[in-house]
């Protein structure tokens, strides 16, 4: 077994990543730029007259919002897994009748534009008193990830070895025990993948937050950004500074989780 670790791949990898992240670099650039220099032509590749006013504003005002975004992200992950994992188990391993139709319905569920969903939710939320609550927002944000999560987990669980499942049944384990002690641990990688998607989608959501949680005591950072968007004026360096600050912890989370995302996504989809 030859493990080639050519250094040129690392170099090329760094170049490609740098290209891909160039807009992110630009975001960083703007966060340090004074308003008067934002539109200078030719553009400054480096912030030549840097200012920290954007960061000062962001650090002073956005940290609680960052905490809220984190809370919503994690809550959304929990919510998504709680709903998606058992359903995927039912579809893939308990042979739920009508799972083909359910599969299709889950696809259809993802076709609804976010605006349609948000307006529909508003009516529901008003009646259930969920408007302007963090819990309500977690619920709404989970609708982004749940159908995808079910599809992914079901695909993976369907590929689990049959013998393990049947062996456990002989031993008298109920479906629930099989689920918790066998299936879930084996699905760890795809669970982490679904968590990643759910977190990222909830983290960057704006439309649900805007329609359903404007007046909440705790608002996510995507809404907090609007502190800097006045009626006719916008403070771009503060907005970008907020985005940078918000991205840093999440980027570390990504790097940590990436290792698990690798092998778990589509074990079931590739049938050899």
């Amino acid at each position, binding site marked *: 077994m030859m493990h080639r670790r050519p250094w040129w791949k690392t170099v090329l990898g760094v170049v490609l990543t740098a290209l891909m992240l160039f807009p992110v670099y630009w975001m960083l650039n703007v966060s340090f730029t004074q308003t008067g220099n934002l539109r200078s032509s030719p553009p400054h590749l480096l912030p030549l007259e840097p200012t920290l006013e954007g960061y000062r504003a962001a650090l002073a005002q956005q940290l609680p919002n960052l905490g809220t975004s984190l809370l919503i992200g994690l809550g959304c992950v929990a919510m998504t897994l709680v709903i998606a994992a058992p359903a995927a188990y039912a579809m893939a391993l308990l042979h739920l009748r009508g799972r083909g139709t359910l599969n299709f319905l889950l696809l259809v569920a993802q076709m609804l534009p976010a605006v349609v969903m948000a307006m529909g939710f508003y009516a529901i939320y008003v009646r259930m008193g969920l408007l302007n609550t963090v819990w309500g927002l977690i619920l709404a944000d989970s609708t982004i990830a749940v159908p995808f999560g079910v599809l992914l987990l079901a695909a993976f669980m369907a590929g689990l070895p049959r013998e393990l499942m049947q062996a456990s049944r002989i031993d008298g384990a109920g479906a629930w025990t099989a689920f918790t002690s066998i299936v879930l641990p084996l699905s760890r990688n795809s669970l982490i993948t679904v968590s990643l998607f759910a977190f990222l989608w909830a983290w960057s959501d704006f439309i649900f937050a805007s329609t359903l949680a404007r007046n909440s005591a705790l608002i996510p950072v995507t809404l907090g950004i609007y502190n800097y968007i006045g009626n006719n004026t916008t403070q771009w360096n503060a907005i970008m500074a907020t985005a940078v600050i918000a991205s840093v912890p999440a980027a570390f989370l*990504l790097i940590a989780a990436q290792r698990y995302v690798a092998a778990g996504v589509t074990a079931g989809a590739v049938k050899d």
Partner: protein
Amino acid sequence: MTTDVADRDDVAHRADRVRTRRRGGLETTQWVALAFAAPLLVYLLGFYVYPLLRSVDLSVHDYTVRAFVQGDAEFVGLSNYREVISSPLFGKAIMNTVVFVGGSLIFQYAIGLALAVFFRSSFRLSGVLRALFLVPWLLPLIVSGSVWAWMMNSESGVVNFLLGIVGVDPINWLTSPDTAMLAVVIANIWLGIPFNLVILYSGLQNIPEDLYEAASLDGAGSGKQFWSITFPLLRPVTAITLLLGLVYTLKVVDIIWVMTTGGPADASTTLAIWSYREAFGTGRPDMSPAAAVGNILIVIALLCGLLYTYVQRRQEES
């Protein structure tokens, strides 16, 4: 070894039959399955069916702003749909949607696949770099949209600046009807690469290394290996990636809205943008035509979904 498994199978099947015979109606396992799926079913009903019904309701009534508030809209049947389809913007919006979705998908997939193959064998820093590729996802769309809008600014944008260095004339990316669509497609491709990369990379991980080793022992170069091993074995993953990509791209509003608001002269107005603009883009919210366009969008996505299911079933049968 095999006999043990067969024996166990037999016992399992007999046990199942015994259990089933003891209850009437639904098999017991079906009840359990239903129990596990119940949260999802309740969830789907409440959170997807209801908004969909509202959207249909909006589209078959005439919801003027007044009617929207008062709740007394007139039922007009399919006339909103007729109006929308016969509008001069319809053909253009469909065309723009096809270009936007087609262009985005092809390049997102191709670039995502190329990157996935590149990252397949791990090298120094490959894990970190792969994770960094997901950073675009962390950014709120208003931020990514604005950054692209700046980079493509005709006067002060860095893209024109870099083009100028290699001697290309500045292009009016966002302000010319000829290039506006190209500009938003480029930005959307950038946004879609992480998704494709993650899924395709995982798909690649499931192709056994031995196949490649056998092939290279037989003297096959990496190009041949790709087309005879990688690509065919990735087909189911490709199908789901493209389908999901299609569904997500059809819905895209934010990036186009922030960059061009659908202009200039409707050059970058897709069906999704048209729907959004009718409802929220003007001082007079026109909910009913917006819902009609939105529902047409859902129907298109539905047809693609049906096509996918049909193709998948054909594949499973063969």
